[in-house]
Structure formats: C-alpha cells, structure tokens
C-alpha cells in the first residue's frame, strides 16, 4: 500500500510538469500585456517609456526561455512567483481565496449527498415506475439548468420575496458561523443541485448493478429483511463509485465555480481566475492551474485509497 502511494505520487510528477509547460507556453500566446492594462486600462495618458520601465522592473523584458526557466526553477522550490498585477506572492493571493472556495465545495458536496443518495436509491428500488421517471427528470433538469441562471433566480427570489440578501463579505466559519452559513448556503445550493444530479444517477445505476450480484441474492434468499439488504449490503457497495463521482466533482469545484462566484460576488478562486485572465496576470493563472491540477491528482489518489480500504475485492501491491 505504502509503495503504491509513493509510486502514484511519483507518477504525478510528469503530469504536473506537463501542466506547467503547457500552461506557460499557452498563455504567452495571449495578446496584450499586463503592464498596459495596469497603466492604461482606464485611459491614462501614459508614455511608452514608462511602460517599458515597468516591464523591465517586472522582468518581462527577459527572453521567453529565461522567463520559462525562472518559472520551472521556482516550481521546483515550490515558489510560484509573484502576481504580475499586485506584485504579491501568488501563493498569498490564492490562499486568501482558497478558504471560501473550499468551503463552498464542501457545502455543495454535502447538499449533493443529502439530495442524491435518497433520490438515487429510490429510483433504483422503484425502477421503471413513475418514481424512477420523476427522479430521472429531476436529475436531468439539474444537469440542464445553468447554475449561474439558477443562482440568479435564487438571488432575485430572495430579494423579491423577503427583501433580504445574503451578506456580501466573507466571514470565516470560526468567526461567525451564522453569517458564514447565510452567505454560502445559496451558492452551495445552486451548485449542489447540479452536482447531486450527477451523483444520484451514479447511485441509481450502481445500485441496480449491485442488486443483481450474487451476494445480494443470497442475502435475500436467506430471508434477510429487505431494508437491511439495501442499507447493509447493496447501498454500501454502490456508494464507492458514487464517492468517485463526488471526489472528482469536488476537485473540479475548487476552480470550477467560475460563473457562480461571479453571480454571488464571492471572493473565490473562480472569480480570481476570470479576473486574472482579463488582466493577463499570467503568473497568477499559472499558479492557479498548478494548484487545481495538483488538487485533482491528490483527490484521484485519495479515491483510489478509499477503494482499497472499503472494497475488499481490490488490493494494491
């Protein structure tokens, strides 16, 4: 097991290097210049000389390969460099936003689990009946509604019906749980609904598959109470793939809240991403891409570990 983990981690290194190379060179093709946006974006009468000076100060006048070298060397020492827009360390910029994004992702996952497991189980048990169809409609509707639109509708409904809106600045959970919760539950619901749709479908299909397996039939034949069969045996085994889906979606949520964060004015990674792109803040974009990829790889690994722990059929050498 330990060897397997080490092996997997080592295998992640080439992938991460690949991500680093791809993101660096991909971004250098983007037209426009961060210095120009910073100094001229609002129409200031700034001379070309001033702009060149600032570029030089930021090291943007160096040849591309030298900049690439700096980036790779920095990575090796876990230094993601400085944001081109704010001049502050990329790690710091990300850290400020990570807490919020992580929390929304966790809350959305909880929302998803709470909705998905009963729905998926129900649909599987009553396969082919109207219940199954209704669940199917609900889940596909979740996949179809753009979450930003759902978010807009939630906000406008709150405002229209209660003349109330969630708080606009982030309060950490340990400072004021209530303020924190009332701000983040709405985006978590908007995203969680879509996310539950994916999960519920997975629960349903897995459950159907498991129910056909021998040990369930045996349990039933032995006269084990039906409810017990479902909870003890079937659901437990059907949950593993569902956990996979949850995990992968969770990893994506860290950076994938792009549009939702815009709608709810949340100061998270997704909003930072959109802003950085509009400002051509390449170092920050690279840093975020590295973080999201790293996160994805770690979650993937964690899921595989879970399989190893929970599913007796799987053993790693």
């Amino acid at each position: 097991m330990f060897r397997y983990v080490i092996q997997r981690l080592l295998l992640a290194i080439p992938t991460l290097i690949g991500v680093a190379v791809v993101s660096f060179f991909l971004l250098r093709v983007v037209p426009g210049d961060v210095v120009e946006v910073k100094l001229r974006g609002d129409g200031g009468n700034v001379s070309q000389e001033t702009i060149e000076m600032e570029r030089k100060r930021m090291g943007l006048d160096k040849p591309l390969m030298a900049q690439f070298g700096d980036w790779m060397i920095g990575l090796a020492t876990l230094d993601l460099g400085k944001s081109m827009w704010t001049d502050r360390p990329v790690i710091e910029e990300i850290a400020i936003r990570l807490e919020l994004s992580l929390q929304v992702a966790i809350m959305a996952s909880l929302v998803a689990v709470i909705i998905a497991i009963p729905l998926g189980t129900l649909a599987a048990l009553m396969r082919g009946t109207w219940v199954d169809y209704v669940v199917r409609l609900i889940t596909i509707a979740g996949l179809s509604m753009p979450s930003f639109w759902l978010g807009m509708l939630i906000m406008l409904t709150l405002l229209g019906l209660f003349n109330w809106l969630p708080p606009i600045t982030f309060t950490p959970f340990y400072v004021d749980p209530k303020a924190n919760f009332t701000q983040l539950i709405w985006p978590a619901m908007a995203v969680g609904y879509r996310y539950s749709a994916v999960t519920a479908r997975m629960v349903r299909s897995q459950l159907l598959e498991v129910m056909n397996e021998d040990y369930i039939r045996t349990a039933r034949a032995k006269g084990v109470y039906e409810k017990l069969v479902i909870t003890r045996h079937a659901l437990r085994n059907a949950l593993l793939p569902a956990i996979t889906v949850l995990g992968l979606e969770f990893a994506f949520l860290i950076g994938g809240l792009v549009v939702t964060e815009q709608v709810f004015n949340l100061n998270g990674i997704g909003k930072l991403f959109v802003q950085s792109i509009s400002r051509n803040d390449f170092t920050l974009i690279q840093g975020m891409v590295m973080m999201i990829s790293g996160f994805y790889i770690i979650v993937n690994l964690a899921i595989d570990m879970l399989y190893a722990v929970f599913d007796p059929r799987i053993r790693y050498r």
Partner: protein
Amino acid sequence: MTTIATTEKAEPARRPRSQILEFMRQQPMGAASFVVIVVMMFAGVFAERVAPHDPLDIDFGGILAPPSWEHWTGTDAFGRDTFSRIIYGARTALIIGFASSFIGSSLGALLGATCAYFGGRVDMVIQRFVDIMLSFPIIVLALVVVAVLGKWQVLGIDINLIFAIAIPIVPNVTRIVRSAALSVRAMPYIDAARTAGYSHLRIICRHMLPNLMAPYLIMLTAYIAQAILLEASLSFLGLGVAEPTPAWGLMLSGNATDFFREAPWMALFPGIAISLAVFAFSLFGDSLRDWLDPKFKV
C-alpha cells in the same frame, strides 16, 4: 459531465436495422426529447421564416415591452423582440453545440482508438497528455483557450469559440473510447486485418471505428448538451459570442438581471431556452445509451 470507467465489454451495436418505432416504444422520454430537438433544429435552420421579427431591429420607442401578441416573450433594452432572438439564438447554440461536440468527440474517438490499437508507447504518450488535459476543469480550460485563440468570426459564429469548447471535450472522449476500443482491439478480425497487411490507418478507420459507434454517438449527444451549456457560460462571462449576435447566454448577461423587476421575461425565457435545449439533448443521449448499450455508463 464526469466520466467513469466503462464496462470492459462495450458491445458494438448489432441490433437489427433500428426501427424508430421500437425506440419510441422503449424510450418514450427519449422520443419526446427528440421531438424537442427536431423542433429546435427546425426553428434554428428556418429562423428567417419562423421568427416574427428581425432579431437585430432596434426600436427605442418600445423598449422593455412585456409579452404580448406582437412580442411573445417581450422586448429587451433595445426594443428588440426577444422571441426572435431566442429563435435565432437556437441557431447559434446548435451550430456551436454540434460543431464543437462533433470536433471534440471525433478527435477524442480517433485518439482513443489509436491508443487502443497501438498500445505501448503511443498509448503511454497520449494517455499522459490526456491526464494533463483532464486535470484542468472544463470551464477553466475553455477560458484559457478562448484567451489564447482570440476571436475569429465567420458569419457571426466564432470559430475559435468552437475550438475552445471542443478541446476540453477531447480528453474525456479519448478516455471512454479507449477503454471501449481495447475490447474491440482484442477481436480476432483486427489481428486478421493486420496479418492481411492492411495499413494502420485503414484498420483504425474501417475496422475499429465502426465498432465504436455506440459509445461515440452517446458521447456526441451528451457533449452537445455540455457544449451548449459551456457556450452559454462563456457568453455570460462576456467571452463567448458578441452582441448583437443573438445568443442565449449573452441574453442573460448584462441588462437581464438589472431589469428583473420591470422585465423578468428578459432573464426568464433565455434561461428556459438553455435549460430546455440541454435537457433535451441530455435526455436523448441518456435514452440512446439505454437503448444502444445498457451497460455503458457515462
């Protein structure tokens, strides 16, 4: 859309020549969604005939008019008929949805089949690349590609936007098709074809790909839905198609929320149009999967 491992045996579609009636009997919801898709395609293709107004006609005299016989879903901040814009928007959504899903799925299928066919080092290299691509969230990858490619519009349709949406689809499809293709690769007739001295390209195209039609078609429909959703998101962020091109996501951005009290129709109907389109394609893709290959999971 998340993709999980497929079952090892993705049976090639060997049903008798498909009867539409059979599909309708077995998959009534799929049939219903297919009708929705056909209606939407009809509206998109014949927009000039179907739309009651010119979607670009500005009328400052009649801005923010509520739904009426004249304007079924009301008018927007420029007095443009939103119903006509939704109909023309169907064209934009379908063109971008079809084109990007087709390009993405086809490229993915080809790569997946190539991986499975050659195995070994080719497989390794492509798989590593797929891993790299997969570790970007789809929307993040699309955002970066949009920024890199810039804009290249032909007839109001942004070609680069199509690529920006297609590229994130490729690795997902590659992965699924590869696992299905592995079992096809193991079939004796592939080895027979190799011994017969056919070229690799011919074997992949003539012998493997036709047997991968089922997963390919399922992915294609599923990703049309995703592509429409992604296009709407990008346009909402101002990175997709540009005004005055009628597009659903664009209709939701900007003024739509500002007028929610006075003109709720501006935020409501385009959102419904997106949801309906994505819903129809998802449901159809689902039914198609159940019908073609019940064991295949996406």
